[in-house]
């Protein structure tokens, strides 16, 4: 890749100033996918050394620094113990360990990769993004309303309210991108359902979740109705990894299995 200069700002302000100075200046996070998307940069701005690689947990939430690697998320005790560990599981299923050692959650989020396995998990964990300038933005809004003003992602907050969760990725081999991925979570009173790689970027099935919220006890009929509602909300199409029909079948099956699994866990 052609890069004129590689810089290591000493603080976030310095990094921000470098970023807004020139459109050809780019932030480099882990660099795992940079080759696939960028051919050149005037300045590559490293975020290393800005103390963005911490995972801080409280009772209600976990804040993950944007430079935390996917491998660190995969193995973090607090994240493993949150919502059936779905964010760790989502990371665990991404490519090989060598990539997970360099790929960061910040890079994964900012790249807006439609096949990303972590997006559905973040959506059902009610995640929010903490930006240097724009402050806290809900992850769902970030996905549905892209804002292209240059800014620095400092961290990601996930809620610990959910009692149980479910994550599933379907791929051709263990090293492939998803044909479809989906995640579910349930707090004491509300469900969240998210489906990604459809091949569109992940989104929440809000109506379906609200429908499930009405019932204390679920039966096959309720689950089926919720699944059908989710399929109405989520845009599905074909790409080289799978046809629309196949994706619909996968979503049907795994939403059904996911809802059952989560309701069993919460008793």
């Amino acid at each position, binding site marked *: *890749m052609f890069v004129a200069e590689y810089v290591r700002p000493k603080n976030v302000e310095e990094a921000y100033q470098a970023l807004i100075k020139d459109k050809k200046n780019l932030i480099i996070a882990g660099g795992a996918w940079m080759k696939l998307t960028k051919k050149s940069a005037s300045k590559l701005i490293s975020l290393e050394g800005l103390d963005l690689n911490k995972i801080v947990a409280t009772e209600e939430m976990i804040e993950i620094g944007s430079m935390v690697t996917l491998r660190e998320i995969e193995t973090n005790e607090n994240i493993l113990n949150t919502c059936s560990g779905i964010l760790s599981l989502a990371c665990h299923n991404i490519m*090989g360990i060598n990539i997970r050692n360099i790929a960061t959650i910040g890079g994964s989020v900012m790249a807006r990769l439609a096949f990303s396995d972590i997006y559905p998990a973040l959506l059902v964990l009610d995640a929010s993004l903490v930006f240097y300038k724009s402050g806290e933005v809900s992850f769902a809004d970030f996905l549905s309303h892209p804002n292209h003003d240059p800014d620095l992602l400092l961290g990601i907050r996930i809620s610990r309210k959910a009692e149980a969760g479910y994550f599933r990725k379907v791929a051709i081999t263990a090293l492939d991108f998803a044909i479809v991925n989906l995640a579910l979570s349930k707090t004491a009173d509300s469900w969240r359902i998210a489906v990604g790689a459809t091949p569109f970027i992940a989104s929440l099935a809000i109506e379906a979740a609200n429908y499930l919220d009405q019932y204390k006890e679920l039966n096959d009929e309720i689950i089926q109705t919720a699944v059908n509602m989710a399929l109405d909300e989520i845009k599905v199409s074909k790409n080289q990894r799978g046809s629309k029909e196949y994706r619909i079948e996968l979503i049907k099956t795994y939403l059904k299995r996911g809802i059952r699994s989560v309701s069993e866990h919460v008793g």
Partner: protein
Amino acid sequence: MLVNVIVNQETKTFVCEPGDYLLDTLRAYNYLSVRRGCDNTSCGVCTVLLNGKPVPSCSVLTASVEGKSIITVEGIQAEAEKLGRHFGDEGADQCGYCNPSLALTVYAMKNDLFQPTEAEVREYLVGNLCRCTGYIQQERAIMKYLGDE
């Protein structure tokens, strides 16, 4: 630009361009056990240990490794030999193009996981593709190597 690194416990200064990838720099400096298999992190052949962790050197900028430690298989010869003997016993050697990168990942795994099961070993090593062996004999050899300790 100049990049100061510690390669196999030896201090080195690489002269490189800001956009150079670690794989190309290492090969230019004669660390020829580090090899290219693909161009986009998807095969594992170019793996080296960066601060002890396996990373794909084809996608790590040399500029980003300033001050860090790099280990190639040249730096773990005794471990590679132990693993290599088990490979020999199990007939797990075929072309061996990816064996140095596999040895490094196995070595990192030994430090990372405590008494891993065969399933955990497979999960840890899944990013190391092999087209020759069908994997099974490699795994037998690796389990024996782990059992040596």
